[in-house]
């Protein structure tokens, strides 16, 4: 017996011992070596594995940052907040700290880039369609966690933008009727963003949200491996199997897609390294310049801009002004009315009624009372909500709602085909307008409210039109996706 054979036998024994107690081999097979993925994945399919890579980068760099970071808003001997100074301490005095910090700060932006592209892939190839609705919803949960994680984490360097960004966003909760003002104090733990806020945001950032995030990532993958991956043609590979029950157009994830994804990783790391080593501030988009000033509750910056990945939604919040509300209400009433007529599901009908009631309240509040409390105190009459919601409430509802709309996609899309390859001009136009409005909103969100394109075209109306286009992509999808002239889907997957 050769030496090699002895080792192999021993390993087999160990593996057998483990397998009797834990399904190691079975899991390895069902998730890697015998998970059959369509063979025609293209460029867009790199971003799922890359999102997982960035998650690992963020967790590992995060662990090392926590070893040196101090969530403390008090001032040190030089008059600099301890939290702010501890970040600079990491940048200068911790071995390799500069790179750990830049990897973490760049990783945050890269996470959103990768996840936005991953979501775009899901949209164009219909990856959210039956039977993958739950994968999509788990993904939505991951996206929400990611936003929360980014928001909480952004307070930690305790710079001016950290402080005032958190102040603005927490203040938004005040718009919630009745409980709003108390809720925002409850969230901050103080009347302004302070040391109490910093400490609780730190706790959320390093443990609470990451725990939920990892759980959702596991659920996302388990659901995916249960139903199998979609592909650029949007056809099910499980319809055509060979004698052994293996899909004819499927290839084992390992080794085929593991080696392919490693190539994707190498390209991603090159981009990542270019940013970290040559432009870690990302031109003020990844690390905002103003955030190199320590937080100061007495100095409000002239322009408070969120980081780029929040700006499309922030822009929609800003676009929702009193002037814009009638247009918004008309649009919501139209979509709700159309949906009410078209659907047979009683719950959808009820949701439509609820939406129109909300609009009525808004209309009532603006026209009758001009957003001021009515002459008779409504609290006494027990109809606190009677005065209607103000523009701030609608703005906040818009910002939250515009994120949540993605979750409805599986039920909004009524097209007979999944992939954009077989969809018609109507859908492609809608998608192009959606992407354009998303980019415009994102760009305008980084600018001060009075911004005008080329100094001529005011940004406000552009943001308002973009907001309606964004909503229309979702709201009108049941109609244009059905009216659209589609091409027949192929039986089997096409090009490689």
């Amino acid at each position, binding site marked *: 017996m050769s030496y090699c054979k002895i080792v192999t036998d021993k390993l087999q024994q160990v593996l057998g011992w483990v397998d009797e107690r834990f399904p190691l081999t079975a899991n390895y097979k069902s998730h890697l070596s015998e998970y059959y993925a369509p063979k025609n994945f293209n460029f867009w399919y790199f971003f799922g594995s890359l999102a997982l890579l960035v998650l690992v980068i963020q967790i590992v760099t995060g662990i090392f940052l926590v070893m040196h970071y101090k969530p403390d808003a008090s001032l040190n001997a030089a008059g600099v907040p301890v939290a702010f100074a501890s970040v600079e301490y990491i940048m*200068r005095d911790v071995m390799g700290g500069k790179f750990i910090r830049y990897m973490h700060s760049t990783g945050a932006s890269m996470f959103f880039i990768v996840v936005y592209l991953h979501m775009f892939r899901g949209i164009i190839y219909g990856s959210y369609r039956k039977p993958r609705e739950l994968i999509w919803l788990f993904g939505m949960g991951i996206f929400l966690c990611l936003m929360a994680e980014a928001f909480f984490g952004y307070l930690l360097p305790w710079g001016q933008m950290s402080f005032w960004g958190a102040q603005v966003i927490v203040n938004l909760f005040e718009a919630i009727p009745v409980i709003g003002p108390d809720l925002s104090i409850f969230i901050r733990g103080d009347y302004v963003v302070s040391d109490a806020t910093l400490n609780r945001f730190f706790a959320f950032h390093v443990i609470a949200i990451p725990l939920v995030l990892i759980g959702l990532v596991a659920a996302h993958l388990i659901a995916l491996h249960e139903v199998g991956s979609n592909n650029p043609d949007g056809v099910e590979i499980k319809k055509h199997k060979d004698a052994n029950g293996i899909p004819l157009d499927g290839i084992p994830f390992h080794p085929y897609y593991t080696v392919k994804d490693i190539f994707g990783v190498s390209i991603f790391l090159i981009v990542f390294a270019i940013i970290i*080593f040559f432009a870690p501030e990302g031109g003020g988009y990844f690390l905002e*310049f103003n955030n190199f000033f320590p937080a100061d509750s007495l100095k409000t910056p002239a322009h408070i801009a969120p980081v780029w990945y929040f700006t499309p939604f922030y822009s929609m919040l800003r676009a929702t002004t009193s002037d814009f509300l009638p247009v918004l209400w008309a649009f919501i009433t139209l979509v709700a009315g159309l949906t009410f007529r078209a659907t047979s599901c009683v719950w959808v009908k009820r949701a439509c009624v609820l939406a129109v009631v909300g609009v009525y309240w808004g209309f009532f509040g603006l026209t009758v009372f001009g957003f001021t409390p009515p002459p008779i105190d409504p609290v006494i009459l027990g109809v606190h909500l009677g005065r209607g919601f103000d523009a701030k409430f609608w703005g906040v509802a818009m910002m939250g709602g515009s994120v949540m709309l993605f979750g409805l996609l599986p039920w909004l899309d009524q097209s007979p085909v999944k992939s954009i390859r077989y969809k018609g001009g109507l859908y492609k136009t809608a998608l192009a307008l959606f992407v354009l409005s998303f980019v415009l909103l994102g760009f305008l969100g980084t600018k001060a409210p009075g911004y005008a394109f080329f100094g001529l075209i005011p940004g406000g109306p552009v943001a308002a039109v973009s907001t309606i286009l964004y909503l229309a992509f979702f709201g009108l999808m049941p109609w244009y996706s059905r009216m659209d002239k589609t091409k027949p889907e192929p039986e089997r997957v096409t090009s490689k």
Partner: protein
Amino acid sequence: MSLLNKFLAAAVLAVTITGALAAGGVALDKAPVRFDDASLQQGAKLFVNYCLNCHSASSVRYNTLTQIGLSEQQIKDNLMFAADKTGEQMLSAMRQDDARKWFGAAPPDLSVIARARASEDGSGADWLYTYLRSFYRDDSRPTGWNNAIFPGVGMPHALWTLQGEQAAKFVTKDDGHGNQIKHLEGFELVKPGSLKPQEYDEQVANLVSFLTWMGEPGQETRRSMGWFVLALLSVFAVLSWLLKRAYWKDVH
């Protein structure tokens, strides 16, 4: 892949338009930042003599200056006026409370000032370079000084013995709506300092170079390391591509 191409083309177009739109704002002079040891040492000398009296650079330790070609002994003999050991932070001797009493505000810590002052109008170095050359005499201010790009600044002109005293030349213009707006046209040197204007600009450039360096010591090393890392990753990319190709030979 045609969709990818269209997407990339659209992305390039969007970035170009965005770039074109982002221009505009206050005019800042371009700072001639130099990272050679001589300039940085000269900047360090100006910094400890003129700035460190009131401002701290608490994230910087004196021995960090060994990175710009100074020995520990040189630092100890020439640059340390308010510290005993080279491992100490660069702290101002002025108390925060006194500063608030005298100037209305505590002077900010300057460790990362060159990064904080960056904006769409220019780099942080550009802002500092313009700022330190834009002080002028203004009797309406408590310190007797004002600044063209930082109106109502609390700091008096710390480098005035070098630059001398400037007076601002204002021109009143109608803004088209009947309002008379004062525009700064330029400066006039009313009392020369110990340096000629050109020499002064040169020294401010040294100081600003030092402030930029101090914002992230070792940023040149970071960039040169970057090329090495990119070379390594490129090799990895080529190898992983070959590996992928070898495995995918039998997929049709």
